[in-house]
């Protein structure tokens, strides 16, 4: 990652998103999108998958977007973006349009982990110069909190309810980064709305790499109604996700893996905050027993072990 913004004072002033979008108070994805656009600047075309951000920002006749914006459907944002990118490339080549616009997909976890995975994979395999940003609020929040492939193990959702036999989601969260990295694209990174400077630098870095091929950023973006916590806690919970090692910040940059602060210190488990600090603030985990929490801790340890092996091989 190249450092474009060193401190909070360096962050750009211009806004290209909102206000007036109909997101819930304290919306994590809204913070993510605001910073994606601020970092990218005006010369970008956004392709948005159906989801929370789409329905809350384009409620006719009002738009929250000050950059060109296209929404087609839920599962095809990567395909539509492939078309936009190819069009700009050929029209530039033919001298029909003079444009340097970059293409950015903004899609949620449902549109990425699940229904949109095929079109994402196709776009990555074909090597389109598109930045695909996943804002992950870990469930289908737009339709009212249903589980997705991005929902964590044990989390309550309306389709992974807490019943007498099954308590929350039975399966674990899909490792989307590994799937994306498996396409051997130039750049993939995780980011978190609690760390906007890191996020903005990753967006700028990714956009610079688009001449070589696709880039991917996975942004964790908590959802107050879906995760069941008071609205003012959005940033605190997001920060705890990284501080407890649940959501590490790292980059895959041309075949090398690099961990960003504070996650770079977290291979040492003692440097991670206890996972309970993250879990106890969220109603979706309110039913967890001590054993469940131990199980989650074990899963996080396993994940860090996997990451350590990756870091050793590709660091």
């Amino acid at each position, binding site marked *: 990652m190249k450092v474009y913004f060193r401190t909070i004072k360096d962050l750009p002033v211009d806004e290209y998103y909102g206000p007036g979008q109909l997101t819930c108070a304290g919306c994590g994805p809204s913070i993510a999108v605001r910073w994606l656009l601020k970092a990218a600047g005006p010369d970008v075309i956004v392709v948005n998958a159906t989801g929370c951000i789409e329905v809350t920002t384009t409620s006719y006749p009002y738009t929250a977007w000050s950059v060109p914006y296209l*929404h087609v459907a839920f599962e095809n944002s990567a395909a539509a973006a492939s*078309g936009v990118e190819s069009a700009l490339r050929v029209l530039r080549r033919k001298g029909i349009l003079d444009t340097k616009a970059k293409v950015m997909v903004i899609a949620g976890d449902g549109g990425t982990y699940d229904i949109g995975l095929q079109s994402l*994979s196709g776009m990555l395999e074909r090597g389109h110069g598109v930045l695909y940003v996943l804002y992950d609020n870990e469930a289908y929040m737009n339709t009212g909190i249903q589980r997705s492939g991005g929902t964590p193990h044990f989390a309550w959702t309306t389709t992974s309810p807490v019943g007498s036999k099954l308590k929350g989601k039975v399966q674990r969260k899909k490792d989307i980064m590994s799937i994306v990295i498996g396409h051997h694209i130039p750049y993939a990174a995780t980011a978190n709305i609690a760390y906007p400077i890191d996020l903005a630098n990753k967006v700028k870095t990714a956009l610079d790499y688009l001449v070589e091929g696709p880039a991917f950023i996975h942004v964790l973006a908590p959802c107050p109604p879906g995760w069941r916590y008071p609205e003012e806690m959005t940033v605190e919970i997001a920060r705890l996700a990284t501080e407890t090692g649940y959501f590490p910040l790292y980059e895959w940059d041309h075949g090398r893996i690099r961990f960003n602060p504070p996650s770079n210190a977290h291979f040492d488990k003692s440097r991670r905050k206890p996972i309970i600090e993250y879990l106890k603030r969220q109603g979706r985990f309110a039913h967890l027993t001590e054993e469940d929490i131990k199980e989650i801790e074990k899963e996080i340890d396993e994940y860090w072990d996997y990451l350590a092996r990756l870091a050793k091989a590709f660091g």
Partner: protein
Amino acid sequence: MAVTKALSVREEVVKERLGLTSNYAAAYAVKSVDVDVIAAYPITPQTTIIEKLAEFVANGEIDAEYIPVESEHSALSAVIGAAAAGARVFTATSAQGLEFMHEVLYITSGLRLPVVMAVPGRALSAPISIHGDYQDIMSARDAGWVVMIASSAQEVYDSIIMAYRIAEDNRVLLPVMVSYDGFLMSHTTEPVEIYHEEYVRKFTPRNLNRPRLDPRKPITVGVIASPDWYYEIKYQVVNALKESKGVIKEVHDEFNKTFGTNYDIVERFMLDDADYVLITYGGASTGNAKEAAIRARERGLRAGVLRIRLFRPFPTDEVVNAIKDARAVAVIDRALSPGNTYEGPVFNDVVSASIVGELISRSFLLFTAYPRGRCSSTTSTIFIKCLMSTREPVSIRGRRYSWG
């Protein structure tokens, strides 16, 4: 005089005569219009179109981006993105592929994007069949596209050129589907006259003066609309499709003038004095219908054929005009609408047209028929049976319908 003039025009515009399948004819048409982005996924019987286009791109014969997408859903989605960015686009599919992109069909017309798509018609699974019928096209009938159905490879070539002109006209801005018989046309070689590119390019000027994604003038495309707005925006599509008929006729006239052809939105065959009218569409069915009409005339029955070339918007006036003096009308459909009062989809369109044309009170007979098996053997049989049996309902999946 007119014939001589057409011949001399033809001499000027035609570059060469090639033996082409309808699929290759489609690819050659796309090549001639300076297309920018092609996105497609292979499916029988569409595959040879996109193979040919991939070859053109690989050899530098077309300066276009060919996006080898991972599905038909993505094929139409990618050309939507490209068209929204200002590019001239093309895709093609058949059958299951058209069904897989079904959702996106409506989005294309709703977003008013001038996408052109070739669809060699094929039967829908299950059981799986790769052979030709029009069930796929009929399932896309209400998607707000202009739908043309060609009956020869030359017509496929010409229709795709016309399609770009229609789709990109600012009074239309709707997607256009050019359809034809799967296999019977898509894989059958016919002589096709290819035009000098300069004439085609001149006929299909690029329209950059339409809404597109441009950072200098940011627009939001693909909104969510409450019912108050939804129906206003959807009605624009309904109205634009209805109004497009005038533009389509205009484009036909100009095409005929430029290329010395003789197209109309319907084809009339021996209709002027016809007591018995057979209505159909596509290649094989029309060929057989014409043959049947000739044989019927040999038996002393004044028969004629009306071919629906423009299927959406439906040529209501032309149909009414063709059947208003008929004693009997038979519609040979190449698809079914199961569970409907009468199963033929175009039959139902003809009935609607009869109501519009106030033909209901007149006494004549209407038949609906769906050829079983390959169209070639049964169409003419059905027609002859229709004509001969004005008392008994027609057999072989045929049905008699009368009023007045």
